[in-house]
């Protein structure tokens, strides 16, 4: 399941951040997104915050949680899955 989410995230990141000449296959899911790896910048970081909110309904505090969550595509995928798990547990309890 995480592999599917990683592939989806790769496609969304390529599209949202206008990464020309990069395919999902070129992207190492465990490589750092900033400085090394894709070499993203601070505007890209904000764009990722918007992407999580718009596509996954997740609001995060970029300055506090950002560095950990946005370390790599894999850490983003893990965060999304954990977040969805928590929501499912909450809704099960309330029902």
């Amino acid at each position, binding site marked *: 399941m995480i592999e599917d989410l990683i592939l989806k995230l790769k496609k969304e990141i390529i599209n949202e*951040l*206008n*990464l*020309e000449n990069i395919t999902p296959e070129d992207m190492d899911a465990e490589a750092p997104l900033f400085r090394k790896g894709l*070499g993203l910048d601070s*505007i*890209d970081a*904000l*764009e990722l915050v*918007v992407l999580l*909110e*718009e596509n996954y309904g997740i609001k995060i505090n970029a300055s506090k949680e950002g560095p950990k969550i946005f370390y790599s595509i894999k850490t983003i995928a893990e965060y999304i899955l954990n977040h969805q798990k928590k929501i499912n547990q909450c809704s099960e309890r309330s029902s």
Partner: protein
Amino acid sequence: MEIYENFNILPSRMELLITRYIQLQDHRVLLNGIVEYVSEVGSVGKFNRSVYRHYNIDYPKFFKMDNLSKLGFLSAEILLQGTDILKKYLGEEIAIILENASSSLESDEKHQESIRDRNKYFPSPSVFVYTLPNIMASEIAIRHKVKGENTVFIFEQFEPEFIDHYVSDLFRNQRVNCCLSGWIECYGDHYQSFLFIIEQEDKIKRFKGLQECVILNTLNVEKLFKGKSI
């Protein structure tokens, strides 16, 4: 039009000279009035990408820019290629003075669209950063490490007289020894870029293309803008 044919007829008075100019319009790139590249007919986005690839430019940030900045960036990139401008002058000695009519309206509208609906309020940071025409000038400045004055003035149409007076004043009163100036307009399907390098006569005496230099004055700038031959 006053043109220097060779060294021997240089005027005794110090002049400002247009040493090189570029035009990107109608799917074409013209350098000093000569067609250098013709792309397939298409949108400005398609044209910008095609020019970027044709000139083998390697600057990944290009793809994150809006169309206006891309057009300005490409104009400066090709204009400066093969010149010694960036070696000859310090970044602080070079100014960027531009004009356009639509400001950054295309990005402004895109941003406005993303915040119009309170229930779908997802403004994009990468769109928002381009909601000022000065960003185009700044992209050029960042790329070439230009640190002199950079300003974009908004006019309904190209104002060569303003450029003539403003740039001349910059050279007279400030520590500017070179200026990139012109008109970079982009909105919807319409795009037009006319960018030129201005230098002082005494700084270009060893410049090989001196015979192609044009004295900076309102009439000459207007003629070049309209594509009239030198």
